[in-house]
């Protein structure tokens, strides 16, 4: 043990009460920081998982109308220079040639699954009630590769859906509103066209209210017949191996395949921003504890400087340099930080585990029955860094003050 650390330890343990205040605030600050980050990022992660599990990582939709123009500039080789005009970009609704687009998308190495979806607005009639809904015509096996539909089925079976051309999967909220259950029939009518009878073979729950109350999954062929759209689809839903790369892939798809591509980050921007704001605000709130820890450390060290001026003079008379005195005081902050961050991390880990077991009934943007936490080493790093920066900044002032004390002045003052 270095002489400075040994002295720091003894100085600190001589002020146990003051040190305990700083230590307990550091433990609370670090621990609560970890818990809040684990819960906010847990809910955010679950939300992302839910929305990717329902609407995919990227949605490729309308065709971009070609607006390239050839300018009258010739290169040495005689080729035209073409400039893309972004202003006034126009779209042609839907995907006319989904087969060709799917083939082209298979060349993108990050694309793990593609599902063609035909969407249309419909009126659903049950024995009790009529309601508006949206029908999503899908090819089941393709759609299972880009969604969590398999896990979202709460009643019924996908095998029966696969074997029943007139079978539909409807959302839990829609089923409740129509007062229908598994095996019952529904009449689905596209505006201005003849209604067709469908049988409910499954009820799903994504937890996203906007989906569960409006969406009906049917077979693509049946949907074409219902909507009278013999070719083309509304959009292609993609899943990716690396979902974080969705914006880059979407840009590349737009630039090369001339169809608008919407990554999940863009699609759910407002919710993601809300989660980020919540994460930051909760971090700021619990950092108050760390701030108090810093103030307590400042107070403790300032008291030690006042009480130990004589000892500082002794140390300086023995050959301890100003930098040694600074280090002795910074070591004291370091000891509190070392103990506080270790205990705080343990407290944070334990509290995170306890919170993850707490019941919480929640639906609307996702469905959960308990608190969701995300375990990440970065939460610990951020919590520890916040504590280290706050406490060390608070410790620098008394440490420098101690180092500036003139031994001659102290000895003369004490002796008088």
């Amino acid at each position, binding site marked *: 043990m270095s002489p400075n650390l040994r002295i720091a330890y003894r*100085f600190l343990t001589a002020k146990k009460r003051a040190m305990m205040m700083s230590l307990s605030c550091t433990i609370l600050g670090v621990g609560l920081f970890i818990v809040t980050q684990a819960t906010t990022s847990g809910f955010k992660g679950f939300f992302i998982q839910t929305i990717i599990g329902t609407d995919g990582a990227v949605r490729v939709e309308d065709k971009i109308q070609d607006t390239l123009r050839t300018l009258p500039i010739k290169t040495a080789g005689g080729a035209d220079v073409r400039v893309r005009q972004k202003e006034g970009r126009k779209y042609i609704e839907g995907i006319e040639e989904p087969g060709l687009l799917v083939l082209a998308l298979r060349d993108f190495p990050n694309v793990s699954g593609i599902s063609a979806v035909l969407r249309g607005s419909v009126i659903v009639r049950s024995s009790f009630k009529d309601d508006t809904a949206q029908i999503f015509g899908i090819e089941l096996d393709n759609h299972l590769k880009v969604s969590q539909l398999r896990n979202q089925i709460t009643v019924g079976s996908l095998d029966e859906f696969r074997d029943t051309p007139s079978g539909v999967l409807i959302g839990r909220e829609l089923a409740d509103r129509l007062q229908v259950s598994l095996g019952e029939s529904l009449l689905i009518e596209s505006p201005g066209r003849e209604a067709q009878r469908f049988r409910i073979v499954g009820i799903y729950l994504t937890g996203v209210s906007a989906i569960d109350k409006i969406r009906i999954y049917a077979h693509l062929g049946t949907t074409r017949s219902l909507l009278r759209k013999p070719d083309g689809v509304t959009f292609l839903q993609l899943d990716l191996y690396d979902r974080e790369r969705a914006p880059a892939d979407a840009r590349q798809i737009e630039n090369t395949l001339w169809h608008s591509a919407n990554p999940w980050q863009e699609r759910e921007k407002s919710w993601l921003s809300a989660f980020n704001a919540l994460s930051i605000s909760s971090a700021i709130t619990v950092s108050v504890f760390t701030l108090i820890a810093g103030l307590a450390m400042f107070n403790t060290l300032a008291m030690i400087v006042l009480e130990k001026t004589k000892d500082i003079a002794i140390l300086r008379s023995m050959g301890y340099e100003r930098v040694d005195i600074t280090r002795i005081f910074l070591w004291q902050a370091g000891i509190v930080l070392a103990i506080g961050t270790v205990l705080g991390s343990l407290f944070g880990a334990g509290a995170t585990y306890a919170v993850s077991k707490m019941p919480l009934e929640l639906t609307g943007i996702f469905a959960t029955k308990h608190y969701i936490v995300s375990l990440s080493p970065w939460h610990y790093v951020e919590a520890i860094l916040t504590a280290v920066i706050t406490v060390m900044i608070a410790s620098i002032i008394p440490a420098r003050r101690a180092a500036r004390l003139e031994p001659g002045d102290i000895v003369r003052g004490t002796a008088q």
Partner: protein
Amino acid sequence: MAAADPIVLRCDGLHRYLGQDEGRVHVLKGVSFEARRGDVNAIVGPSGCGKSTLLYLLGLLDQPDGGQIWIDGQLMSNSDDAIRTAARGAHIGFVFQFHFLMLEFSALDNVMMPMRKLARLTPPQMTERAHQLLNSVGLGDKTHRLGTQLSGGEQQRVAVARALANQPSIILADEPTGNLDVKNSTMVFDLLTRLAKENGQAVILVTHNPEIANRCDRTRPMRDGVFV
């Protein structure tokens, strides 16, 4: 060679002012002084005459407003804080009137503290030397007692052992017996002078005690900031 020079400490024309503005006092008025190895020097005089101020200047705890100080032939008065601090650790041992032990530490730790900073010895050598020094001041059986568990006389004996820890060439003592009874005063003074003479160290002590002063090799009376 500087180490062979019998004069280990010398100052010439030292001036020191204390206080500020109207309260500024000319405490030392051109003091010159030298100390030889193995000699015990007493500086005596009434309170406020500048004895302690001179001692702190000689110990490089303070800086003069004028004049020069040489330690082992090296000019120290105008050197920067780092050099003066290093010189204190290597060449000077202090004994103060109020013991100035670090009370949270044991007697052994107090004696080892200057050795740990200088780091000339290995940790086992430091421990052995600290035990030797505490034995020599009669505290071999109290090495692990905290400062708070020692009497005034014992604390001052630990302070003497600590001052000798790095085998300095100069021992500066500011009224080392001023806070002790007669028996302890005699014991501490005898100890200090015996150990210093054994090791060829110069001792400069400030005292009000005429008996102590009379037993020193040289006595320098001071009045109003000058030797008389």
